Each structure stands twice: as C-alpha cells, then as structure tokens.
C-alpha cells in the first residue's frame, strides 16, 4: 500500500472524530457586529489554542508538503455574534491579481445539521457544511475596489475596448448590461467576477468540488499582515438561518484551512485540519 493511500484511509477514519484541542468562545460585552470592535482588548481572557494543519490529503490536485503547520485561534462572542482571531506564519503578503498570483486565505468550517459532525473534508451529500472564507484578495477589493486592468498592468496600452466604445454624436455608450457581455464571468453572474462586498465569502458545500457562494452573506473579516504573520478576524452571527447555528452553552465543531499564496496555493491546494475541533460557546 502506498503512503498516500494509507493517509487517505486513515483520514477517512479519523475525519469525524474531534481533536484534543478545544476552542472556548468567551462572552464579552462589546458589539461584535461592527468591525471597529476588533481591538486587542476584546481578546484578553480568550485562551489561544494552537491547531495543527496538514497538507490537504484527499482530493487531487493537492500540495506535496504542508505549508502551514499551525494556526493559532481565539474566539469571543457577544450573545449575537461570534468572532475568531486566527494567526499563522506566511512568507509574504499575497493578494493575487495576475495569472499565477494567488491570495493568502483562511477558512472556518461549521456543520449545518445538529448531531454527529459531517466528514471534515467539506462535508458530504446531505451533510452540508457552512464555510466562512476570508481572502486577502477580497479584502483588497473591499478596501480599494476591484482592480482594473490598468491597476494590474500599468504599462499596458490596449488600442480600444468595444465595451468602452463611445460615439458621442450618436450613442451614449453601452449600458452596464451590454458591457457585461464582454466579460463572460460577469455575464454569467459569477460572484468571483464582481467587486466583493466584504472580505469574507460565505459558502455551502456537500463534499469536495461542490462549494457554492451564497448571496446574503452577513459575516465580516479583517486581516493584517505584519512581520511574517497574518492576523485575521472573522466575525459571524451565531445563528445563520438555514446554515450553521451556534448556541451559547452548547457545544459544536469547527474546522480550519489556510492557503499560502506565495506557494501557489488555491482551491484544493491548501493546509487543513484533519479533524473537527470542538467549539464551546460559553453561556456566561
């Protein structure tokens, strides 16, 4: 038996068993629904857990080596919202843009249904998971706007774009709808092709390759890169209708994934937790 097969089988067995670490979200009095509430003081008293990650082992293409060994996690809640502070080491800050440039990213994953958690590797058919995916690229979008071609290639000089063609004497130029025809991703309504409204995408998945971004995202995120380390805060309402529901005083589970843009990680090339981590949302 090859090593990779052995890892696959082992992973299948351990996938629904929780790890030894446990994350406790302590209750605080500040309003977490506002980004400005993420100052350092709110994290005092929240224990930081170190969670081990491994190169995603289940679906090809996958990374050959683990690029993110650890993610450090703290959690707090205010009775309505819960926030996670995630820290991990990264070589450099990567916000994607051109071909072959990929974004640093982190994701939190929660079970949607009550009871024993679904397979940790993005759930399974009829066992959905709810994912909160922060990308440095989306944060850049949110802060500076979606990059134009002139931002990505300042020295490029295209003659003209039919989508921007204007004949002042006769027509006003094209409507936005007609312009979109020249951008297939936009015309097809792909959320990837539009300016992101926030740094966090909310996603539902029922197994590898099934993830889809949901429209009415409510979560917020804020990341800072300093001295080779990302610190990212992701906040979400405790209760998401038809999605992940967390209740104070009740246990649940959370799983993590990290992408290193500098290592061309994207999609299935990522480091992940091999088990669910128990999550306690403190009642008091």
């Amino acid at each position, binding site marked *: 038996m090859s090593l990779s097969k052995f890892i696959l089988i082992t992973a299948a067995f351990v996938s629904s068993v929780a790890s030894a670490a446990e994350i406790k979200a302590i209750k605080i009095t500040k309003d977490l629904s506002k980004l400005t509430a993420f100052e350092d003081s709110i994290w005092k008293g929240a224990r930081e857990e170190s969670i081990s990650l491994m190169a995603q082992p289940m679906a090809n293409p996958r990374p050959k080596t683990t690029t993110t060994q650890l993610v450090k996690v703290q959690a707090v809640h205010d009775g309505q919202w819960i926030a996670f502070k995630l820290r991990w080491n990264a070589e450099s800050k990567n916000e994607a843009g051109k*071909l072959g*440039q990929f974004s640093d990213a982190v994701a939190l994953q929660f079970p949607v249904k009550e009871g024993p958690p679904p397979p940790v590797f993005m759930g399974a058919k009829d066992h959905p998971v709810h994912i909160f995916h922060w990308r440095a690229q989306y944060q850049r979008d949110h802060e500076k706007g979606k990059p*134009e071609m002139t931002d990505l290639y300042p020295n490029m000089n295209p003659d003209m774009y039919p989508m921007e063609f204007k004949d002042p004497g006769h027509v006003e130029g094209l409507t936005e709808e007609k312009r979109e025809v020249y*951008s297939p991703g*936009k015309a097809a*309504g*792909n959320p*990837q092709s539009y300016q992101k409204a926030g740094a966090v995408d909310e996603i539902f998945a029922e197994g590898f*390759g099934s993830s889809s971004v949901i429209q009415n995202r409510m979560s917020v995120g804020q990341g800072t890169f300093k001295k080779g380390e990302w610190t990212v805060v992701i906040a979400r309402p405790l209760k998401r209708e038809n999605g992940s529901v967390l209740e104070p005083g009740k246990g649940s589970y959370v799983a993590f994934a990290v992408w290193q843009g500098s290592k061309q990680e994207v*999609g299935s090339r990522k480091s992940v937790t091999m088990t669910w981590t128990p999550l306690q949302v403190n009642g008091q």
Partner: protein
Amino acid sequence: MAKVKNWHLKREMEYPYEESRPKRQWAIVFDLNKCIACQTCSLACKTTWTSGKGQEYMFWNNVETKPYGSYPLAWDVRVLEKLGHQQWERHEPYHGKTIFEAAEPSERAVHFHPTDEDWMYPNNGEDDCAGNVPHGDHINLPHDKWFFYLPRTCAHCTYPACLASCPRKAIYKREEDGIVLIDQSRCKGYGECVRACPYKKSMYNPYTRVSEKCVGCYPAVEQGYQPMCVQNCIGKIRIMGFVNPPWKSREDNPVDYLIHKKGLALPYYPQLGLEPNIYYIPPVHANREYLAQMFGPHVDEAIERYQKLREDPVAQGLLVLMGSTDRIIHSFKVTSGIAYGFDEKGDEIVRVPVTEPILERAAFDPKYGTVRNNTP
C-alpha cells in the same frame, strides 16, 4: 483512475473519469500544406469572442510557426520535457506513458504552469526558419531548412486534462457535440486547467478572475454552421465536422474520410493521451523526425498518401469542398468531376467542380479595341 479506450494510442489508458463518448464529436481538420499564417482565423476568433477586458493577450485560436514559434512560450517543448522520453514503435500501440499515467500521486496530470509573461508574445518565432540559409545554398526536397505554420484551437479532447484537473468540476464536455466548456458561473479561477492542459488552451482572465477557453463556436455549431475560424479561413485549409471513432467511421463523412478512410489527417501530440479532436494533414516538406514527434508514427504514410492525391478524384473533391461553405458538411459525394456537400438531413448545401474549368481569352479584346495583358 478508470481505464478508458484511446484509439489514437490503440490501447486502454488511465483517466480520472469513466469513458463517456459524446453522441457526436466536434472536430476540425487542417491542411498544413496550405496554411500561410495570415492570422485571419485568429482575428475572426478574437473579434467574435475575446475583445473584452482581461482578454488582451488571449487567443483561443492562434497560428504559430514551427519549430520555433509558440504561444504561450515554449508550451510544446516544456510539456514534452516534463513527460520525459517516451517510445512509440510504428504499427504498435503506444507503450509510453500519457500525462495522466506519468502524473505524480498528488496531481491529475504532468504539467507546467505558464507564467503571465509566457502569454505576452503570441507571434514569438513567427516565420523563423529551422536553420540559416547561407549565401548560394539551394533547396532539396524535403527541405533541410524548413518551417511550417501550425494553426491551433482547443482540441475539445475526448479526455480533456482541463476537465480532469478542475477540483470544482466547473468544466464539462457536452453530450450533444463533445465541445468542452468552462462553466463561467462556477469557475473560481484556480487556474488548475491552465496548468493541466498540455496544449495550453485554457486561459486566465484577470479581469473576470475566471478561466476561459475556445467554445468551439457552439452557437454556430448548434445552427449547423462551422466555427468562425473555419468560415473565415481564406486559404480554405480547414473543415469542421463530427468525427467518429474508427469503429463507427462513415466513409461519406468528410472528417471521417480524411482521418480514417484515407489516413491523411493525424492528431497532434497524441502521446499526451487526451485524444485531441483537431487533426492535421502534415506538411510534406518539413523534418520527418520532428513531424513524427508531433503527429505520431504514421506521419510518413500520411504524407505519402497526400502526395498521391492526384490519383484520387474523391479525395480531391473533398479537399475542394473545404472552405467552400459556411455550413457543416455532414456527408459528401464526388461524381463526374463535381463534389457535393450535404447537411444533416441529406439536403445539398454546396457543389463545386473538382477542377475549375479553364477559360481562355483571346489576346485582343475587339469590344474595347485593346490588348489584354495579365498585370497583377
């Protein structure tokens, strides 16, 4: 990995998904002896599909000069280098490895990742000859100094590497015509298809942040028309049709006739294992070892047959049908020096004389009272 049948290789091979052949398979045959690299096909495609933002350097159809031209930079030699030395004996199944079989355990296919800069020189190497022609040299056949033009679209492969590598399953092959499409609403721009396609025909759009590729002009194909690159080919070197596997080959189907019946047209880099569906009539004057590497071990026979076409009025008739209609020719016949093309229902859509009649005009035009001369 599933075992699938690849008739280009005359054997079964490994592929991530089960064999599932479409009802019919989109295919183009190119006669490389006629291509002059005018790039009308590239422009026809560009103005139809890729004039938007993020598509500035995107050519779903391109024409490159072989051996030195390439788009993206050195795509062919880099993928062959990654695959490593493989052997293919004439009249034997291919015993070497395909890009799927040679893949590392963590990957779907042997690949290289072209950089952004690799796409920025679409006419790199254009018209470069394989060797210098010193003063006073003369040319023998086949030429020892040679080059030829290679027009390329997506090959809408039977076993696409782009489709195999997409972790989101955002790429699909249409059952009705075998056209391979990237779902523009599901793609997240991971670029796995850009890495995996050995022909480098998946391209990343940094403006929409998703990948795009040749769509086989499916809206035209659905209406019974050939793709824009075929319709606009001024050299009439192309014909688009539906190719059958050899066990279902139909002699009156133009592309089946050229590929199966006559063995004139060959797939390019079949050893990669994708069963690509663009086929080439190889150039008669280029280096045979290079051609064998590109078109497989049957290239000598294909060239020999091509050179004997004078003796074959049916094949000649078919070659004049190429470029003579915008419609898709589903079947053809050649009788009494006339070639006929028919649509799906069997109705005639085009007829062409195999040899254009020669009209001789007297040197003196009595009507205008002037001497005619052939001034170009």
